């Protein structure tokens, strides 16, 4: 059991998303950095898709009401358990009464969201097949809302005996993708791609894009050279998914993120491939990013590479938790 001690603005309970209710108007929600959530869960022996807490605003403080193991992944926030510094991407053990504090993200690979996992996952009810917080409509997660000071959350399996004290090489280092020193994202051109001027298309791939302050779990609004359509495009409302790059009349693109609504009508320049969406989920506001054009085969291969990394994590962690090489905590 943990109690939130800080005004945890925008921290939410998330799993890997609510994937099967789009036809009722329900978007997927889910962790912005699905790799961090899955890896944190695997470190504790949870299902990769168990619910964790996604923390985008710091400092963040929680008190452990009982002895409990936990894992920290995602942004390296100079975490401390009471006064003791904790390693990022690592499994830890807290005693009853100890306070976990996450500070501002730090390091050369500065990310923007930390993930806290507990044994068995965060114990909130499953709604429409998921424990993710659905903000619009206010259901799922913890009471259908962001966490607040004083909230008490339970681990589904709080007493689990669990080897801790080991970690993972963060995927930003294990699966890097950069272009000219900036985080790069692979994009599959979308239905209206050719409806934009050739110069705009070139500029999209060649230019740097800044993530503006109007960016959140719903969408990332980018700033850069405006994308101009050859002629205005009016579309019928249609299904969309996280990663879709919409271009409203301003010409400044918006990338749909995990809380995006499941339908839209703006022209679609392309889609950031699912395999790279975690990188964008960790890109801080104000940072600059680049885009790389990709194709179906490469995009599927990238997804397989990401899954292979997770499979390796699952295998190695299982061995560490049970094998002869295991280091007892």
């Amino acid at each position, binding site marked *: 059991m943990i109690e939130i001690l800080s005004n945890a603005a925008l921290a939410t309970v998330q799993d890997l998303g609510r*994937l*099967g*209710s*789009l*036809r*009722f*108007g*329900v*978007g997927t929600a889910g962790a912005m950095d699905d790799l961090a959530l899955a890896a944190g869960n695997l470190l504790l022996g949870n299902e990769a898709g168990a619910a964790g807490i996604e923390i985008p605003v710091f400092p963040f403080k929680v008190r452990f009401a009982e002895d409990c193991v936990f894992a920290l992944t995602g942004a390296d926030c100079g975490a401390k358990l009471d006064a003791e510094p904790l390693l990022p991407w690592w499994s830890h053990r807290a005693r009853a009464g100890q306070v976990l504090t996450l500070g501002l993200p730090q390091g050369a690979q500065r990310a923007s969201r930390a993930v806290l996992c507990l044994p068995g996952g965060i114990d909130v009810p499953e*709604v*429409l097949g998921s424990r993710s917080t*659905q903000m*619009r*409509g*206010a*259901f*799922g997660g913890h009471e259908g809302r962001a966490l607040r000071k004083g909230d008490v959350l339970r681990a589904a399996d709080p007493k689990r005996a669990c080897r801790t004290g080991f970690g993972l090489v963060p995927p930003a280092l294990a699966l890097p993708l950069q272009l000219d020193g900036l985080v790069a994202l692979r994009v*599959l051109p*979308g*239905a209206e791609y050719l409806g934009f001027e050739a110069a705009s298309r070139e500029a999209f791939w060649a230019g740097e894009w800044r993530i503006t302050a109007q960016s959140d779990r719903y969408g990332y609004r980018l700033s850069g050279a405006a994308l101009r359509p050859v002629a205005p495009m*009016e*579309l*019928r*409302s*249609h*299904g*969309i*998914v*996280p*990663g*879709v790059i919409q271009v409203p009349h301003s010409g400044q693109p918006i990338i749909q993120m995990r809380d995006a*609504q*499941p*339908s839209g*009508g703006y022209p*679609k320049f392309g*889609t*950031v*491939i*699912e*395999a790279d969406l975690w990188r964008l989920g960790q890109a801080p506001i104000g940072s600059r990013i680049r885009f790389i054009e990709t194709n*179906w085969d490469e*995009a*599927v291969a990238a*997804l397989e590479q990401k899954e292979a990394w997770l499979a390796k994590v699952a295998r190695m962690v299982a061995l560490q938790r049970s094998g002869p090489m295991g280091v007892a905590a």
Partner: protein
Amino acid sequence: MSLSTTGPTPTVSLLGTTALLFEAPGALAFASQQRIWALAQEAAGWPEVREAVPGMNNLMLSFVRPPRTLDALTARLAAAWEAVTPLTREGRVVELPVRYGGAGGPHMADVVAHTGLSVEQIVELHSAPLYPVYALGSHPGYCYLGGMDPRIATPRRPVPVLSIPGGAVSIGGAQTGVSASAGPSGWNTIGSTTMTFFDPVRDPPATLQPGDRIRFLVEGIEP
């Protein structure tokens, strides 16, 4: 949505590796939507499809996992589109009492200004049709409706409103709809209703389904 037509043949486009979008050819039409429903019903049973999600004369198929190649799936979609019989859904008729104008309809004046009609004329035109639910989308329980009188079409607002309440009845371009929960909107809100459109613990969670029809009843007009 606009009433613009698409090309002469269906198109298929990719939404990354997560889904594909099938768009019906021709002008936006109810008959075409009935074929989309039929196509959705069939495609929902295909092994690579996680969910078949109708839009306005289009259909999104999300993948269980992305197929190695897309040729077989797109060929199957094209063949199924040619073969389907339009799905006639004898849905329910749901009557929604609406209070038009006043505090619950803050943008009525903008619709008056754009259309040149009086409030009474707008209310009469808006409450006359039996609107078919084409599809659900946008947010939990929200219905895309067909059949609004083009005379009251009003462009979306240049600056979206940060939050409109659940039950807000609004016009965006040639479409009308009722928000199912509080949230941002670029549409012009002309009235309000108290209907509950979504309950996540119900099965199905949405009150209305494609094929149901909505009639707006004039409960009152406020200045």
